[in-house]
């Protein structure tokens, strides 16, 4: 079977897409099959969650703060500064917390998956797994993917809280807003669907970045240099995927 003569980048895109779909298919096919490695799942959740938490919280904090700062200045031009609380909270919960956490976890955990699986590939550890009657996707990819899918929403919940708190700090302490009114505004227009849509997005981003990270590592070629390429690709591809998916998910979940 010869592939038709597509220009390199186009062929490359379809190849990556094909592999991605294949990997997703294999993850779903292997997930229900025993043995269930709960300990590995937990281990991966700790790895993803704990390692990324400081950066995620720091980012959320400053994003909340800068949001308050910006919107306060702009909204005060038409005397609507009382809505700063609503704006900060809704932006964080619906959008920013999930996207930023996704990007950070892609940089930390996704790249680590690319590097780890890539190294295992070039040192033949993945072949060794197959030889010992162990499917590498089942053993390596499945726990990583579900661990990230479960952990990212948890990080986002924390990010929401910290981001809203950061906004409160700036608005109340720096800009002199009324604390009671600010807190009221924060929750006045928020609905459960806002929170849920953010968390669903976070789960989807976690799934995407883990599958992409693992896929890049899994198909590594060419020794140490190849591992470097896979690690970079894991971050770049996952970040783009998260931003693109964000648009479509927002459209879907309004």
């Amino acid at each position: 079977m010869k592939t038709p003569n597509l220009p390199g980048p186009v062929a490359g895109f379809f190849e990556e897409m094909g592999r991605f779909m294949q990997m997703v298919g294999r993850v779903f096919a292997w997930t229900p099959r025993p043995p269930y490695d709960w300990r590995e799942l937990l281990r991966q959740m700790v790895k993803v969650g704990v390692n990324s938490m400081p950066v995620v919280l720091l980012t959320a904090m400053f994003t909340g703060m800068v949001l308050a700062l910006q919107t306060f200045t702009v909204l005060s031009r038409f005397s609507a500064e009382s809505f700063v609380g609503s704006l900060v909270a809704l932006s964080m919960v619906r959008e920013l917390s999930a996207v930023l956490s996704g990007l950070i976890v892609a940089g930390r955990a996704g790249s680590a998956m690319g590097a780890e699986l890539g190294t295992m590939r070039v040192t033949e550890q993945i072949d060794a797994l197959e030889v010992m009657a162990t499917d590498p996707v089942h053993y390596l990819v499945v726990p990583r993917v579900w661990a990230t899918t479960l952990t990212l929403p948890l990080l986002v919940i924390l990010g929401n809280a910290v981001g809203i708190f950061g906004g409160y700090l700036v608005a109340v302490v720096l800009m002199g807003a009324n604390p009671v009114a600010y807190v009221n505004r924060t929750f006045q227009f928020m609905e459960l669907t806002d929170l849920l849509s953010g968390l669903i997005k976070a789960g989807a981003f976690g799934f995407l970045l883990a599958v992409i990270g693992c896929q890049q590592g899994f198909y590594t070629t060419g020794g140490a240099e190849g591992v470097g390429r896979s690690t970079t690709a894991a971050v770049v591809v996952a970040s783009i995927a998260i931003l693109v998916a964000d648009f479509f998910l927002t459209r879907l979940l309004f």
Partner: protein
Amino acid sequence: MTELARKTEPAVKIRIRDLYKSFGPKVVLDGVTVDIAPAESLVVIGGSGTGKSVLLKHIIGLLRPDSGTVEVDGTAVETLGNREITEFRRKFGMAFQEGALFDSMTVWQNVAFPLQRLKKLSHGELNDRVEECLQMVRLEGVGDKLPSQLSGGMRRRVGFARAVAHQPEILLFDEPTTGLDPVTTALIGEVILDLSNRLKTTTITITHDMESAFLIGDRIAMLNRGKIIAEAPPEEFKRLEDPRVQQFIHGRAEGPLSDEAPARGARDSRDDPGAKTGESGGPSRF
């Protein structure tokens, strides 16, 4: 082994017929035909990039041939589905080039891995078996160490212990001595000889180290440009007149092998596992 050996003849453990495999434009195996008898130790020699590792990976079903067949105990490997191949691989133990130990696990966990996956043993039995395997490769008492704390030769011996742990019928050694010092090389040669004598397994070893080849092999086959160009028992092999064989045995730079210098892409398959999916690892990467 002659061509006369028939399918039903039990004297053949592994039968390889007209095996052909190419990665992109590069033909790696170009019609390999060879038989291996039960409990025989076959050594496959050949220069880098002549497809030795690729041949091994076909036998265990890590790679699928473009055409030709590999039969093990009368079962054609390429016809097996995913589930069947898992079952099929229980027959095999494979030791990889650099050991391919799982570096997140201790030596003990590495050796125990195939036992936990392939056999149901009590904790005591498991412990005994792991110790026994480590003894076989002369590595008692390193069970708690991590692979990164071991030397290259030790890592490979742990790899051997892991390969024999579940008592396979067939052992595959991929370049067991490449890059080791002469003393360790000799030691590894002895360990392999010892293992295959003691366990009565069918053994296929890939190497380009002639000394261990003559030590380990009941029979030596030479792979060149994707074909078996010579096969004979060690003593006979030394006397073969084929100039390519003589050049290889004596490690001369001048000769027919050098004239056909390995072309571009003549790398060990280890560097090119993506070949498995038929891609060249080129421009698709970001």
